């Protein structure tokens, strides 16, 4: 199943903050930042279990992350990926000439991919080196 017309926001979370201190290349970081949080009602439309990998697609790229239900809801129509390498595969690099990319507010589509593989930070970034 998939959901269209979502808005993607990227933000800090305390778990992501803890994971980045000395453990960026660990599984802990994947669990903290390789996730996409959904509004509870939106998530029902995906018709899958919490934790199922989902592909998040924007005009700027796509990334596979684990799904989760937001503890900071309700926020219908909004999905949320913590700041980090996963979020940065799909953010808008355009800074509108001010230097700061538009990390928040991208239009996004999400597909449930039960067989999808969520890469760790090193392997995800390695793809950029090889590209």
């Amino acid at each position, binding site marked *: 199943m998939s959901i269209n017309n979502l*808005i993607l*926001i*990227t*933000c*800090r*979370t*305390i778990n992501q*903050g*803890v994971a*980045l*201190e*000395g*453990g*960026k*290349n*660990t599984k802990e970081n994947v669990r903290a930042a390789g996730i996409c949080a959904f509004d509870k009602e939106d998530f029902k439309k995906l018709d899958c279990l919490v934790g199922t990998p989902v592909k998040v697609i924007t005009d*700027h*790229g796509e990334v596979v992350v684990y799904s989760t239900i*937001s*503890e*900071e*809801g*309700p*926020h219908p129509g*909004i999905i*949320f990926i913590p*700041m*980090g*390498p996963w979020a*940065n*595969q799909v*953010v*808008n*690099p355009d*800074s*509108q*000439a*001010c*230097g*700061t*990319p*538009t*990390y*928040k*507010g991208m239009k996004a589509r999400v597909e449930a991919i039960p067989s999808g593989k969520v890469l760790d*930070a*090193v392997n*995800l*970034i*390695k793809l*950029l*080196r090889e*590209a």
Partner: protein
Amino acid sequence: MADKNIRTVTDVICPFCGTLCDDLEIDIDIKEQKVIEVRNGCQIGTRKFFSSNPSEHRYNKPLIKDNGAYKEVSWDEAIDKSADILVKAKRPLLYGFSSTECEAQGQAVELAELLGGVLDNTASVCHGPSLLAIQDVGAPTSTLGEYKNRADLVVFWGSNPVHAHPRHLGRYSDFIRGYFRKDGTNDRFIVVVDPRNTNTAQLADMHIQINPNEDYELLNAIRAILRGVELDIDEISGVPKNKIIELVNALKSCNFGVIFFGMGLTQTLSHHRNIDAAICLTRELNDHTKFLLTPMRGHYNVAGANQVFTWQTGYSYSIDFSKGYPRYNPGEFSSVDLLMKDEMDACLIVASDPASNFPAAAVKNMFKHPLITIEPHHTPTSVNSDIILPPAIAGIECEGTAYRMDSVPLRLRKVKEAPGKCLTDKEILERLVEAVRSKKGE
């Protein structure tokens, strides 16, 4: 009885976020030079101290990539190779600096000037728009102590301190008792403006659930109502008119208000124009009551990087030395824009992880060219570097100065020795300056 093998260091400044908490107590195993206990820190700050202990994630010797694998080298060789790369580059980018101390940042300015390179700090991707707006319209601001003692209305706009600045609410902005706010949180009205019902919003007295990317419209609607304009629509930015009027009344009727703003304003559409509007709103609120604003700075010394770069070059970030003198133009000399246009041919990254934090298209271009990192831990940037120079962690393994989010300078403490052959960021940059000078025949 006190254990002779343990030394307790008190009043330690936490080198994690811009709140720069100054009351940490750290227990050190003297023999092993390891952190064994951290008191008073938040979850993230505590983790940062523990992560300084030797581990498989920590570098302790200089490394150079040779046929795809890293080999240990001497500092002399690592500095010589790094200087070679930087001197040969036509347009090297020096980026990072927000998680190190001011003396090292000063050395980076000298190195960038010598190389004729581009110098940028992480404000470029976080509060750069705030700096642009402050240059345009100024900023009525104050220190965190004033807010603690006086503020009875606190607005968090596009910022979620429960997650990003975990002790901010407890030390300065909500729960803490102040001189004029004897009853702490009960004497304060907290407003959160955010598209999500964040954990900070769940603690607040009022949550304005705004549509993403529509902050500029709401800020200006508030300004209009403040001037007595009657809005002719029922809803702005997803917020009902009545709710906006209720917010305006709360803002006007407080004794001392403050707006803390974060990435929710700087990283959305409108960028620095959002901050312009927020500053103008704050200025106009002073016609009714006392109102100030302060950016919620992320890295513990990003404010220091802006201070040091400004007093040494005249500009706070995105500085180009290619003409022999500093020029400033965010959008052209800012790191992400430079990388997107592939206009650099080598990178020196200091105390930062752009491979994790920059958009993917920018990272791809960064990897096309030689990459040197001064970084204590394994990160997606360091493991893709050609040369890794391991530093002592500033604020844990060496002293230095850092600026809090309200631009108050504080002296960082050294609590333990760095593992292995680590040098401080300042020493590494000094040696690079020396090597570059000698290669250039200066």
